[in-house]
């Protein structure tokens, strides 16, 4: 008979914290866990729907059980049992500390400066971490029209640090976005048509030092140097520096690369598969565990 969730919970500490081998995990799992690693135990995290939400849920169950999760519809510190499909899903409100609305989350929490980590998606990104979620082509007659800001521009500029998750393609990794929804460490001046550091544009505001800290893609993880320029930190297993460069339109700094992105451990995969998304809403399918892990779980 299948184990109950409580029985599975008791098993967690027995599952080895050893990196899984290539082929034993899939890309969304690797990315979800890479996101989870960005979350610190004392963070107040504000995340968007989709993979960011999956990643921070995983963090809350693994490395950062005390992290506070804020969802923009008004949820403060939700403790989810079932993966939400929306930031307004009642599942995200489970056991929350308080429930309010957008004025609470964007005003009282975010603009008041409580949020330490934002986690967001994006359609395209520039070399300074500026993100486009609005449109491609002419703004008024676009070739592609996306959803627009939502909370992206608020969270991405006012959280102390922000991590983005983006699908990497040459046309999505740009020197400058056609439309900048959420500016990164440098802002494009509409009048002078040149880049200006965020620290200068936002000078005097409480948010001059807030900005992007990491970018997680399907190929690699990136960070920002002291000038606010993106550099390659690690590439995912099976990806090379050359492939990363082929899928980037700007002159990417690869001199500080540390090597491969850490592979998820068996314990992390166990939590991701059995507790974060057992319903298979985000994950496309359940990947088989290797025999030694399967024996531990079934045993």
């Amino acid at each position, binding site marked *: 008979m299948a184990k109950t969730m409580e029985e599975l919970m008791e098993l967690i500490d027995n599952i080895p914290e050893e990196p899984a081998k290539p082929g034993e995990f899939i890309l969304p799992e690797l990315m979800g866990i890479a996101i989870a690693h960005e979350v610190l135990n004392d963070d107040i995290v504000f995340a968007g729907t989709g993979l960011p939400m999956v990643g921070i849920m995983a963090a809350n169950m693994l490395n950062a059980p005390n992290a506070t999760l804020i969802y923009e*519809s*008004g949820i403060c510190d939700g403790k989810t049992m079932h993966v939400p499909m929306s930031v307004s899903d009642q599942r995200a409100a489970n056991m929350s500390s308080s429930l309010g609305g957008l*004025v609470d989350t964007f005003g009282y929490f975010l603009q008041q400066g409580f949020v330490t980590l934002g986690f967001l998606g994006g359609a395209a990104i520039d070399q300074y971490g500026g993100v486009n979620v609005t449109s491609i082509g002419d703004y008024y007659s676009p070739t592609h029209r996306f959803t627009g*800001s939502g909370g992206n521009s*608020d969270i991405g500029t006012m959280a102390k640090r922000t991590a983005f998750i983006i699908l990497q393609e040459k046309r999505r990794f740009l020197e400058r976005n056609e439309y900048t929804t959420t500016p990164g460490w440098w802002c494009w001046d509409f009048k002078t048509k040149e880049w200006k550091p965020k620290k200068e544009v936002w000078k*005097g505001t409480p948010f001059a030092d807030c900005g992007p800290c990491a970018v997680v893609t399907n190929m690699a993880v990136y960070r920002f140097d002291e000038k606010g320029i993106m550099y390659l930190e690690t590439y995912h297993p099976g990806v090379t520096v050359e492939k990363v460069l082929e899928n980037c339109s700007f002159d990417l700094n690869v001199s500080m690369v540390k090597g491969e992105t850490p592979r998820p451990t068996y314990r992390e995969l166990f939590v991701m598969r059995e507790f974060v998304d057992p319903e298979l809403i985000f994950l496309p399918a359940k990947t088989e565990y290797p025999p030694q892990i399967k024996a531990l779980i079934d045993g």
Partner: protein
Amino acid sequence: MPRIRGKAKKVQMMTLEEAVKKYMHDGIQCAFSGFTGFNRNPMAFAWETARQGIKDIHVIDRHGSNCTWLLNAIGAIKIYETDWMGWGEMAGKLDINLERTYKAGKMILEDYSHGAMAMRFLAGAIGAPFIPYYAPLGSDLYNPDYDALGRAGLRDGKNPRIAKKKFIQIEDPFFGDGDVVMLPAARPELAIIHVAQVGDKGTAKWRGVGTIDKEISFACDKVVITAEEVVPEAEMRKNPEANQIPFFTVDAIVEVPWGAFPSGVPFYYDYDAPFMREMDKASRNEADLKKWLDEWVFGPKNWEDFVIKLGAKRLLDLRADSVTGYSTRMMRGKNPAPRMKMPLSVARSGF
């Protein structure tokens, strides 16, 4: 905007058909309650609006929903002033109908951000003409070239509900805390708010998230409440701290069970992700969309008939349980939801 009143409103109870007929009209500026396609969308009201052929609507809202999806599907929205043009998050992110209408040049889209729209409604709610917000400097949202209503010549002051400017950037004159953006209040004509319970005098409440529904109710001239159930006002007074909408803001009450479907009402029923995926699929092709609209919007005799058509099986699966407020019987992904007693994060953090 502040509207000095001589006397209190007297709420009227009416049918869905009557409420749409009385409060909606071509060219109206309105706002809907809830959050994206998932939480407390006043769908029955939008559905009846579509059936009555109301057009040229100016929706001012913080994001799309089932309501805007449907109104876009029949081309009823002319101006869309919002910050997130999606509607279904994980069940159908982008509104394909909207994209089609917009690319065909039949609609004006004005972009803001989520926080900015919340602040605009807050300003509207408290009667302030504008509100300062650290809206992102350096974002194209505040690029003077990207002011869609201005470009369309609609910021000429003729329409009192359209601000003469999209925003004004100023240096904080009081504390000198850098540059800040002043945003105009949102002050639409009509709010349509779907709630769990409303008293027969108009006091209303919901459980779960509030989004900006309280702000919308105060920011708009008129408020129509659609509710899962209408109860005696005295019942609403037993636990007043649970109520959000004071009766004196409300103009009309419509009792419409399952009136938020396919979005959910916490502790009543869950959202129907498979139904929303079907809507998204239908919108990808004009013939399929027409078929969907004929079947689900123009086919049923009335909303009750629509709910009957959904069938008992679906309604059973969606019924929320009284502990969590959502359904654990609904198949949202490929596997059924596991039975859980305690979130793992709580078990691990130890409170």
